[in-house]
């Protein structure tokens, strides 16, 4: 064969011509044989028949001859023949194909989606940012506290100059701004950044420029901003002339100098940032003012990129050296302060850490679901191969080699896998942003997760799906083509209801499905109980009707004195509203994204150990706050109007704080210092939970708002016996009566505020419930399939039983009992597995034991009930058999 001939084999007409030539040759052979017979004296009719008989099966001869053709062109044609045949077979049984594709799509899609979310958030949380695997977050540490803190600007700048292990430092501190107008203020989320931000992360603005060196220092000196693609699109109608326009943040005009590309969402997991401003503008966004010169003001959320080849621990070592130097050099501000670096998946500043355990659970669950799906596919393919047993044996008898038949069946499996995989990728694609949907908007801002797909993960999942389906096609193919001719044609499996070898394989697969389904359902049951417990947990204050809304006077240009007057006036008016029982102001809001104010304290009579720097959270409140929120006052008194800014400073401490610093004595009358001001303790209140429902009791104390004025406060009010919603308009009206230019942020009940903070748990519950339900359906379907098949295989035996006098209800009982036996075994296996594995959920469960009997019991009941239901239809069909027809089957 010359090269030319080989290549020409790829042309379809060349291949056809060769086939036609061979056909002609065979025809001629037959004709000559017939002619010879006639010449020898046979009758023409006999000659024809004998010649044909001697010749044999023309089609087979031709096929065997063509099989000898070796060129790749032929190989390709054989493949496409197989593919076309496979597609035809799949089209012929649409239900089977649809079910199999749906199963694969679900399993592969769910897996690809969850795994790439996890990998994405862990390894590449910031879309559009380059070399994220070398980025680390930089936080401050305090001796005596396990909480991480932020750094101060001067410390951070010194750190960035003092190391060689990093090739870039930048700051991106989350902040908010208000676009005012109308009844409600619109909240934007953005970041305060260093001037080198965009260069350091490798993001080139789509329009305009980033920030110039030096634009990040100088109080208020550089009112410029870069806005996000979405803000540009939604607010400015994608105006191409946007560079140079003005936008007002908190009533301060800023010039837009650039727009970021669409896929870039900033450097904070969980929010889509809408704007970036240089740090020099800090005073516009932070009511406590410009802090870039203050070494003790800690607000910086910093990042750095490790130089290539430098490990995290090496970087940390260098950082520690610098931190030690700063501590020695600036003893006043930095005593007891250290610096710690974190890889991005442990970033203390954003939501990545809270998500991680949830996503881990999600990954495991998706993996389990994939196994169940594979089991289902295996079952389906096995059934199909068995159902086609007669067809296959006839083809085998006609001369098809076993290899050919296997090739056929495997091709079908691969095609099915390919279709299912494509569908799965599609599912994964459209679920791209659904993670964000699980998070309720907080403070009016939607959480967004830039789920960049991790293609290696997707690829691995796809390979797994394809591989497993092919394997599952291969096994039944080998199985059914091994059949001995006559045996298979009799199509009678040995035994009947009990199954036989093939029945055993299918039963084993269904066992796997049922037990895994049980495990998933138990997991979701535990998660649901945990979430319910969490939502019902008592935070220590009355949350049901207490409503709160933020009022930012800073935005409206108030200073503290004017804010004082505003607050007093408003409080008077709100309290006067008829249906309001109590109202108060506070500077901090529980369960909000912004942590409570925190500061270093000194306690009279308490000597901190050498390296300890006591700090505590504090909240500035008006008199009546505790009554409004239902926080019990244990000892002493509440703040009063007499605790004004001219009176002696006072404080109220929480119970835990009282016990920590004044262990064996009453704190009442003792003194406590915050930032240089000594205050006397006048009361003790019960502890509350304000960071998370699972937090331990914290060091928290309260000061009167009159003695710690702020321009950003939250209003709390408790309506008297009526729905809070009806009271809100009156409150808004009262605000506008005082100043029509001030708009509050949205009003929510504290209950809702707490609910929003449990979104991580909610994801877990949703995922587990969804997957658990799917697993249940698949297991039930699998069981139904097995029982139906067994019944159909044992029709004759059932007929015999009927003929010998069995009643239909006895047959029903027979079938149901065999199905139930299978189900019970599966459930038992599932329970055993669950007992072992749910321990892994341990720390994610809130006040629920991993072996909670209620959950286990209800899952057992559900699974058995569902199994019963799936057996009933085939059993009913069995009981309705006509004995004569059954015997003849």
């Amino acid at each position, binding site marked *: *064969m010359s090269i030319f001939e080989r290549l020409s084999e790829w042309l379809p007409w060349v291949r056809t011509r060769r086939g036609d*030539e*061979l056909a*002609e*040759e*065979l025809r*001629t*052979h037959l*004709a*000559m*044989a017939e*002619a010879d017979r006639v010449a020898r004296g046979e009758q023409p009719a006999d000659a024809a028949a004998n010649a044909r*008989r*001697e*010749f*044999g*099966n023309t089609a*087979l*001869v*031709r096929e*065997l*001859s*063509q*099989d*000898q*053709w*070796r060129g790749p062109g032929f190989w390709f044609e054989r493949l496409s023949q197989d593919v076309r045949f496979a597609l035809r077979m799949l089209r012929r049984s649409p239900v089977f194909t649809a079910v199999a594709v749906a199963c694969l799509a679900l399993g592969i899609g769910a897996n690809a989606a969850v795994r790439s979310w996890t990998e994405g958030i862990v390894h590449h949380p910031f879309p559009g940012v380059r070399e994220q695997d070398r980025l680390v977050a930089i936080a401050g540490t305090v001796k005596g506290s396990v909480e991480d803190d932020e750094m101060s600007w001067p410390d951070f700048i010194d750190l960035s100059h003092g190391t060689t292990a990093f090739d870039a430092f930048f700051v991106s501190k989350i902040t908010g701004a208000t676009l005012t107008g109308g009844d409600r203020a619109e909240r934007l989320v953005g970041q305060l950044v260093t001037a080198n931000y965009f260069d350091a992360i490798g993001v080139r603005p789509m329009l305009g420029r980033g920030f110039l060196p030096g634009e990040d220092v100088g109080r208020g000196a550089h009112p410029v901003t870069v806005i996000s693609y979405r803000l540009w699109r939604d607010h400015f109608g994608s105006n191409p002339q946007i560079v140079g326009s003005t936008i007002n943040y908190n009533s301060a005009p800023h010039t837009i100098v650039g727009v970021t590309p669409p896929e870039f969402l900033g450097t904070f997991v969980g929010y889509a940032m809408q704007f970036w401003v240089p740090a020099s503008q800090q005073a516009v966004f932070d009511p406590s003012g410009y802090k870039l010169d203050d070494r003790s003001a800690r607000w910086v959320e910093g990042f750095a990129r490790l130089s290539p080849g430098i490990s995290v621990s090496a970087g940390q070592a260098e950082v520690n050296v610098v931190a030690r130097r700063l501590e020695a050099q600036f003893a006043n501000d930095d005593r007891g302060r250290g610096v710690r670096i974190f890889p991005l998946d442990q970033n203390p500043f954003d939501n990545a850490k809270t998500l991680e355990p949830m996503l881990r659970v999600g990954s495991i669950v998706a993996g389990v679901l994939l196994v169940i799906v594979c089991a289902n596919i295996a079952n389906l393919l096995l059934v199909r191969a068995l159902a086609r047993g007669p067809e296959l044996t006839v083809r085998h008898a006609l*001369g098809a080699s076993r290899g050919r038949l296997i090739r056929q069946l495997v091709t079908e499996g691969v095609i099915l896998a390919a279709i299912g995989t494509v569908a799965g990728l599609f599912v994964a694609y459209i679920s791209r942003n659904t993670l964000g949907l699980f998070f309720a908007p907080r403070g009016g801002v939607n959480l967004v997760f830039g789920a960049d797909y991790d293609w290696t993960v997707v690829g691995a999942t796809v390979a797994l799906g394809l591989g497993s389906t092919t394997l599952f096609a291969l096994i039944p193919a080998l199985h059914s083509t091994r059949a001995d001719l006559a045996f298979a044609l009799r199509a009678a499996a040995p035994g009947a209801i009990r199954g036989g070898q093939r029945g055993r394989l299918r039963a084993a697969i269904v066992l796997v499905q049922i037990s895994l389904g049980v495990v998933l359902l138990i997991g979701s049951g535990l998660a649901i109980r945990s979430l319910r417990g969490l939502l019902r947990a008592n935070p220590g204050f009355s949350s049901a009707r207490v409503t709160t809304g933020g009022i930012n006077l800073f935005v409206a240009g108030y200073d503290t004195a004017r804010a004082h007057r505003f607050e007093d006036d408003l409080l008077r008016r709100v309290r006067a509203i008829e249906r309001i029982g109590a109202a108060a102001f506070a500077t901090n809001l529980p369960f909000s994204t912004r942590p409570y104010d925190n500061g270093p304290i000194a306690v009279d009579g308490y000597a901190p150990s050498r390296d300890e720097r006591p700090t505590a959270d504090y909240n500035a409140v008006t008199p009546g706050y505790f009554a409004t929120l239902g926080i019990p006052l244990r000892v002493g008194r509440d703040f009063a109007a007499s605790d004004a800014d001219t009176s002696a400073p006072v404080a109220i401490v929480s119970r835990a704080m009282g016990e920590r610093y004044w262990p064996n004595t009453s704190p009442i009358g003792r003194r406590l210092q915050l930032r240089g001001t000594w205050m006397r303790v006048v009361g003790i209140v019960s502890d509350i939970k304000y960071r998370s429902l699972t937090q331990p009791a914290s060091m928290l104390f309260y000061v009167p708002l009159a003695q710690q004025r702020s321009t950003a406060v939250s209003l709390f009010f408790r309506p008297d016996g009526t729905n809070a919603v009806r009271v809100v308009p009156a409150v808004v009206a009262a605000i506008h009566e005082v100043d029509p230019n001030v708009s509050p942020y949205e009003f929510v009940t504290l209950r809702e505020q707490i609910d929003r903070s449990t979104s991580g748990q909610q994801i877990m519950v949703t995922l587990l419930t969804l997957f658990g339900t799917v697993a249940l359906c698949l297991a039930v379907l699998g069981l139904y399939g097995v029982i139906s098949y067994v019944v159909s295989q044992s029709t004759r035996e059932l007929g015999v039983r009927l003929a010998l006098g069995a009643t239909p209800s006895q047959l029903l009982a027979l079938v149901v009992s065999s199905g139930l036996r299978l189900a019970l075994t599966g459930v038992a296996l599932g329970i055993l597995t669950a007992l072992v594995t749910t321990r892994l959920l341990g720390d994610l469960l809130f006040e629920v034991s991993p072996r909670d009997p209620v959950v286990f019991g209800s899952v057992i009941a559900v699974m058995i009930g569902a199994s019963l239901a799936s057996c009933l239809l085939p059993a009913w069909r069995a009981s309705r058999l006509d004995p004569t027809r059954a015997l003849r089957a």
Partner: protein
Amino acid sequence: MARKEPATSRIELLQGTLDFIILQALRWGPCHGYGLVQLIRSQSGNVLQVETGSLYPALQRLMEHDAITAEWGVSDMDRRVRVYRLTPAGRKRLAAERSRWEQLTQAIAGLMQPPAPEEA
């Protein structure tokens, strides 16, 4: 495909042997498929009756290996037939196989003789 023949008259040949037989038959001149069947049958004294299901695949195989070539011609009955002939490579292969067969035949013939009496 399977014709029920009495077991004795159906000799199962190895694939390589069939190829050899065909090459040998073509040594005496080009031939078409049917003619080959006749030739082999008559030359072997009706012992070797090659089935079409073996012949044609073998012919295709030999063509793939460039041991024979085929061209269309006209038979004496004015039929369009495909005629096969040996290539030089085919001839060489045939010569090698022949000598191998002869060696084998001699060896087996030797075994058919009673063993020489051992000199004590």
